[in-house]
């Protein structure tokens, strides 16, 4: 992938990620998150991870965001009214985030391997086949546990959102 496309999608992802936090209206936040996830999916595909990129669009931009929007509309949440901003908390939050970012960037700057470009792939990748083979051989037990986890989550959600019978 050309560097030009990488920077376009990276900037798109970051800008709409910031819009999620900055928007006051939760619906606008959710729609910004969709665009951010689409940009992220393009970045995954630029790394030759086509399966993960497709899953990202299907699961996140599809299912999870529909769930978010559905709940926002169900609860009928309007844009937050402007409260008095707790200045101490806001400065503290931004400060901690900036310190973390500086720390990570320092670590990456001292990490020599990070300056290398990506090695070429030998042949066309068959990533769905390879991931599937790993899932059903090496990672079979975690895969089964994930299945149980999703089942438990489904039952838990049904129980949680059921109204108490009077």
């Amino acid at each position, binding site marked *: 992938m050309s560097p030009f496309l990488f920077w376009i999608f990276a900037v798109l992802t970051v800008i709409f990620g910031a819009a999620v936090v900055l928007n006051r209206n939760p619906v606008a936040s959710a729609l910004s998150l969709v665009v951010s996830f689409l940009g992220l999916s393009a970045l995954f595909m630029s790394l030759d991870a086509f399966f993960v990129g497709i899953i990202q669009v299907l699961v996140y931009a599809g299912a999870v965001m529909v769930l978010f929007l559905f709940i926002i509309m169900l609860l009928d949440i309007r844009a937050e009214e402007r409260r008095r901003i707790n200045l101490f*908390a806001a400065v503290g939050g931004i400060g901690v985030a900036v310190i973390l970012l500086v720390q990570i960037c320092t670590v990456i700057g001292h990490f020599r391997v990070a300056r290398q470009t990506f090695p070429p792939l030998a042949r066309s990748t068959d990533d769905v086949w390879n991931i599937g083979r*790993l899932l059903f051989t090496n990672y079979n037990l975690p895969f089964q546990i994930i299945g149980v986890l999703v089942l438990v989550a489904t039952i838990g959600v049904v129980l949680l959102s059921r109204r108490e019978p009077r």
Partner: protein
Amino acid sequence: MITLGDYLVVSAILFTIGLAGVMLRRNLIVILMSLELMLNAANLSLVAFSRFRVGANGLPDYNAQVFVFFVITVAAAEVAVGLALIVALYRARQTTDVDDITSLKF
């Protein structure tokens, strides 16, 4: 050319945005969205390392991509349970603002 560090920096920025969202916003739904942003930032660096570590057969290291698959699955389950909790909370308190939910006693 694009290096591994470029992807890692983008991932770090995304993670920081998510962290700032969790700490600054007070709407529970937006906090949940910021959590998703942080999980996806971790996924991006995992996929970047997977592509960087090309094995002897010329293929990326697919172990990391399987891990990303697991992260996405767990994140989807987490969102479902979290939103159900928010709906239950809204029925009891008619609010999704974390500043209004400060008492432990229900």
